C-alpha cells in the first residue's frame, strides 16, 4: 500500500496528492509518469508526476476528474492509501542527457495547458536547479482552473498565464500568446508543449509554421504502462510507437494527432462510450462508466 501524505484540491476538478513511494522517488526524472490503481477492483490509470522529493521518498501527483475512476480517487484523503503505485514509467525528457552549457545557450519555451501544467513543472524546476531559466506559458479555461502559479514563478525565467475567458492574465489560447511572444521578437530554439491533445495539436501547427522544433508529451489510453500491450500505440511519422515505453515525449511535428484523438475517445469520452455501447449491442460488457454495466 502507498500512503497519501497530503491531499489538496488546488483548483476546480483538479487534485494534488503527495504519495509515499520511496523506490519511485529515488529513481524518477522529469518527463516520467506513474500508474496507479486505487483499490482491488480499480483500473490502472497513468498519472503525471508533478514533483518528487528523493529524500522524503515522496511523489506528487496531479489529476483532473474526468470519469468514474478519477471521481472516486478525488475522494481519497491524507492517511488513505493507493493499493498500487508503479513507476517511474516512460523515458525521461531528452534534455536531461544534454550538456548543461549548451542548454544554457538554448532559448526554451514551455507551454502547459490545464492540468498539463503539472508535468511541465518538474521539467522547469530541474532546469532551474541546473542554472537554466526558460519561458513558460500556462493556459487554463478560467482563473479558477489555474494551478501551480507560485511554484512556476519561483523556477521559471519569464512566466505568462493566459485564460480562455480572459478572467486572468492574457486573454485567449496559449497559441495566441506564443504568436505574440514571437512577434515581440523572442526567438525560441525549442518548444515543449504538454496538455490536452487538441491543444498540443494546435501548438504544433503553429510552431511548424514558425519553424520552432516542438516536443509534446502524449497521453493516450494505457493499461500496463510497461510496453506489453500496445494500447497506447500511435503513429510518429511512419513508425508505430508505444507511448508508455518509447515516449511519452515525441517530436510533435511528426505525431498523428487526429488518429491519437480518435483512439483516446474509445473509452474516455461520453461520445466514445455511447458509440461503444451502440456498436457492441447485446455484447456490451461492463465498466464503460456510462450505463452502470447492467445492460
Amino acid at each position: 500500500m502507498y500512503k497519501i501524505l497530503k491531499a489538496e484540491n488546488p483548483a476546480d476538478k483538479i487534485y494534488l496528492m503527495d504519495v509515499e513511494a520511496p523506490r519511485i522517488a529515488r529513481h524518477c526524472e522529469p518527463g516520467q509518469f506513474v500508474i496507479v490503481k486505487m483499490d482491488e477492483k480499480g483500473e490502472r490509470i497513468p498519472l503525471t508526476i508533478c514533483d518528487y522529493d528523493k529524500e522524503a521518498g515522496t511523489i506528487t501527483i496531479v489529476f483532473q476528474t474526468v470519469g468514474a475512476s478519477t471521481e472516486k480517487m478525488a475522494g481519497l484523503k491524507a492517511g488513505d492509501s493507493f493499493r498500487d503505485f508503479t513507476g517511474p514509467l516512460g523515458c525521461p525528457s531528452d534534455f536531461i542527457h544534454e550538456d548543461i552549457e549548451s542548454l544554457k545557450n538554448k532559448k526554451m519555451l514551455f507551454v502547459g495547458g490545464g492540468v498539463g501544467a503539472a508535468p511541465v513543472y518538474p521539467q522547469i524546476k530541474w532546469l532551474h536547479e541546473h542554472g537554466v531559466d526558460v519561458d513558460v506559458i500556462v493556459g487554463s479555461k478560467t482563473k479558477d482552473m489555474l494551478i501551480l502559479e507560485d511554484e512556476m514563478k519561483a523556477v521559471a525565467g519569464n512566466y505568462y498565464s493566459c485564460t480562455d475567458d480572459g478572467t486572468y492574465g492574457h486573454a485567449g489560447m496559449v497559441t495566441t500568446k506564443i504568436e505574440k511572444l514571437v512577434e515581440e521578437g523572442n526567438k525560441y530554439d525549442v518548444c515543449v508543449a504538454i496538455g490536452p491533445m487538441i491543444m498540443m495539436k494546435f501548438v504544433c501547427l503553429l510552431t511548424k509554421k514558425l519553424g520552432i522544433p516542438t516536443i509534446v508529451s502524449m497521453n493516450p489510453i494505457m493499461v500496463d504502462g510497461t510496453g506489453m500491450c500496445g494500447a497506447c500505440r500511435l503513429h510518429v511519422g511512419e513508425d508505430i510507437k508505444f507511448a508508455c515505453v518509447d515516449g511519452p515525449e515525441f517530436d510533435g511535428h511528426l505525431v498523428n494527432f487526429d488518429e491519437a484523438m480518435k483512439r483516446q475517445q474509445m473509452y474516455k469520452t461520453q461520445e466514445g462510450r455511447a458509440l461503444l455501447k451502440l456498436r457492441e449491442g447485446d455484447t456490451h460488457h461492463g465498466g464503460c462508466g456510462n450505463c452502470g454495466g447492467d445492460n
Partner: protein
Amino acid sequence: MADVLKKVPVREQEAKVRATNFEEVCYGYDKEEAMEEAVRCLNCKNAKCIQGCPVAIDIPGFISKVKEGDIEGAYKVIGESSALPAICGRVCPQESQCECKCIRGIKGEPVSIGKLERFVADYALEHDIKPQKAEKTNGHKVAVIGSGPSGLTCAGDLAKMGYDVTVFEALHELGGVLVYGIPEFRLPKEKVVKKEIEKVKELGVKFETNVVIGKSTTIDQLMEEEKFEAVFIGSGAGLPMFMGIPGETANGVFSANEYLTRSNLMKAFDDSYDTPIAAGRKVAVVGGGNVAMDAARTALRLGAEVHIVYRRSEAELPARVEEVHHAMEEGIIFNLLTNPKEILVDENGWVCGMRVIKMELGEPDASGRRRPVEIPGSEYEIELDTVIMSLGTSPNPLIASTTKGLETNRRKCIVAEEENGQTTKACVYAGGDAVTGAATVILAMGAGKAGAKGIHELLSNK
C-alpha cells in the same frame, strides 16, 4: 469393466453452456476416477514419460502412490521436481511431452498423466497440504525478476535450499502470464494460481509487486545497493507484435495481450471491476497459437461471433490440440489459409472490416514447414468491428538495455547457458521466455530450475 486402452474420460462443462461463462471448462478427475486411471500405468522401469517431462517428474512414482490412494504421498513425489503442479497439469502440452512418450500410447491412449498431476495438486490445495520448507536459511540474498512460471520455480527451488529470496514483479498481481494471459476458463485465478503462489510464499519467498526493473531500480543497483549476491531474470516475452498493415491503429484493433490483460488481469468481464473492454459483435483473431485460441474464446464468452484467421492449414496450427478442439466445439469459426492485407476503417476511426487474401501451401522451407503463398486474385472483404492481433511476442528490451554487460541476441533474447542459466554477466542468470522467446509454461519452469541450480553452484562455493 473399463477399456484399458482408453483414458478414463474427464468430466467437462458442456460446450453450449460454457461458451457463455468464464468457469473452468474441464472439471478434472475425482479420487475414484484418478485411482482407476492410475491403474493403467505399467510402472515402467526405464520410464520414457520422465524423459518427456522438462522438469523430469518421477511420473510412475507419483502414479503408484495414486494407485494406493496415498494422494499426499503422490504430492510429495511431484513436489521434488515441480513447484506448480496444479498449473502444469492444466496448461502443459502433454501430447508433445510426457504423454507422447508413454508406452500405453503405442497401442491405445497414453496414461492421462496431466489430469492425474492436476488431481493430485488440486487435492493438495483443497486439503492444505504444505510443501516441504528448508530447515534453516543460509543467509545468501537472491533477487528474482518476474513472478511468472520461471521466476516462481526458481524462487521456490532456492527457498527450499535455504536462500533468502525476493521476487520483483512489475504488475500489481503475481503470476505473469498465468494471471494476465491464460484465461480463467482454462486456469482459475483465485482457486488455483493464487493458492499455488501462496505455497511458494510458505517456503519463505518474499514478493514485491509494482517494481519495474530497469525503471523503479536496476539489476546493478539491486546488487550494489541492496546487496543481492545473485539475480535470476525471468521477465518473459511480453512485447506484442503487429503486422504493419494499414489500419492497425484504428479503434477496435487490439493486441491479444491487451485484450487478455483487460479480461484476465483487470477482470473486465466482471461488471463489478472498473476496467472496460470493447468486446465487439463480430471479431477476428489473427494467428493460430494458444494465445489466439485464448483471445478467441474470451471474445466468444463476451458475446461475439468469432473468427480465427490463420495463414496456414489446420495441421499447422501451433495451439494445443485440446484447445483447438474446445474452440471448435464452442463455435469459433476457423478461416484457415487466409491472411489479412488491410484493416478497413470507418469515418469515426473504427474498424469496419478486413481485406484478406486466400493462401495455399507451397514448398517446405528451411524449417520443414510448407510456406503459405498468396493465391493471386483471391482477395475479399470480411465485415468486422474488432480485430485481435495474436502474432506472437518478443522479450521487452527494458532489462537488457539497463543492465551493463548483459548480452542479447538478434531476436532481443537474453543470451544464457541452457544447463545453468548463466548469462554473459557475472552472478546474473536468466531463463524462460526472456531467453527462448515465447514458449511454454513448463519449459519456463525447467529453465527456472536450471537457474536455481546455477545460482546454488555459484553461492554454495562462496
